[in-house]
């Protein structure tokens, strides 16, 4: 009896976890689109992608940007996207190099 109860509970938990991850991934994807819509009008995205910040620090950055006129339609999703990809627990990626613009050979 105990065994019978345990299995469905475990299965339910697994299903719930899977559903949660699916939701999270969908939210993160919405956040990625929101990033392009809200941030790109003023600056390129390297400025964001080079940083590794805590949730609290990203929240502060979004508040600053909102104060400077950024219109966010889906702030919560943008926040989840930033934390998921550029949180302070994520590895640092090397900055790119620009192409030679001097015209010299």
């Amino acid at each position, binding site marked *: 009896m105990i065994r019978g109860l345990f299995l469905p509970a475990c299965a339910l938990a697994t299903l719930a976890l899977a559903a949660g991850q699916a939701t999270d991934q969908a939210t993160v994807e919405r956040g990625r689109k929101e990033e392009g819509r809200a941030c790109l*009008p*003023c*600056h*390129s995205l*390297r*400025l964001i992608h*080079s*940083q*590794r*910040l*805590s949730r609290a*620090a990203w929240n*502060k*950055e979004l508040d600053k940007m909102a*104060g*400077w*006129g*950024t219109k966010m339609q889906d702030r919560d999703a943008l926040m989840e996207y930033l934390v998921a990809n550029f949180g*302070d627990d994520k590895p*640092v*990626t*090397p*900055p*790119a*190099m*620009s*192409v*030679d*613009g*001097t015209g010299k050979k």
Partner: protein
Amino acid sequence: MNPNRRELFGAVLGLAAAARMKGSDDGVTIPGKRPMILHNDRPEDLETPLQYFDSYLTPVDAFFVRQHLPRPAPIDPAAYRLTITGMVSKSVQLTPEDLRKLPQFTVTATLECTGNGRVFYTPKLPGIQWGRGAVGNAEWRGPRLSDVLKLAGIDAKAEFLEIVGADTGLASTPDFVRSMPMQKALHPATLLALSMNRETPDIHGFPVRLIVPGWDGTSWVKWVTCLTPAARMSSGFFMNPAYRYPKYGLPPGTAARPAELEVIEGMPVKSTITAPVDQGKLPLAAVAIRGFAWAGENAIERVEISTDGGSLWHDAQLPSPKLPFAWRLWRFDWRPQAPGYYTILSRATDTAGRVQPFVPAWNPSGYLWNGVDRVGVTVEGAA
């Protein structure tokens, strides 16, 4: 200084250097610039790779760029006007020719972004993740700011000078407006530069750029269009809360009380190792350890090098002149006695006796990193 983080970032820059050798994967070209470390392209935030630092004057095509706001459309010198208004005898509008008629002076000065080295702070901080290369040394030439202001006549009660550049913010982003005490504005080395290294690059703020030797790069306003003597310091974002530093030391990761943040002015003493390359390999033979050192409004008195992680220190040679405002190149000839891994450190002392610290004070915006510089190298034995 967090060794793990330093090593990690060194490895990251090494990868970036490797990417450079293969060509950029992003295809972004900045006209007039060699391949640069691309922190951002719109607006441009470009860091100088260490391997370009091989001369006393940093060439314009390798000089770092920090833009807070989109670069304004190139200014036609024929249409350019500099307005001086506010607490003056008479408001005036000056042309480039008016500025050229004044006595011209050349000042060699090191320009450093206030956030240079931010990437080395732990905990991590928002802002451009500059490594070592948001700094450069150039010859700036133009009239003294004091001579320019005399053309309008400054009210003796004006204690500050507000400086406005032509760059404007998008949406509600504040315009770039700075303010400095009149005493520094009237300093004989403070110029309205009409050229750097005899060039007039738009990307660096010409036709007219403010030069504030020894002070943080944010004070060096680009594309200057308006000067306003005033009784008080301007209160815009780029003076408060931005570009302020805590008056008292803070535990890393904590916030400062706004009332205890002070405007950043003069820069600290600092040295940087440009060669050998961090995490590089060397043969068991003589090698020159090289770099540069600078100290805000002071001159560099001494640079010491350690090749054993800080147990023993040796004086480096300083072939450049000892001048305030400008960096000095330094060099130490080293002959490793055995193969193995070595930790090389550089430590500068200035003419006021300030010494570069091992652990710079963490601060909430990641400004003024000046920790003892460090590279690691592996000396390989004979095959």
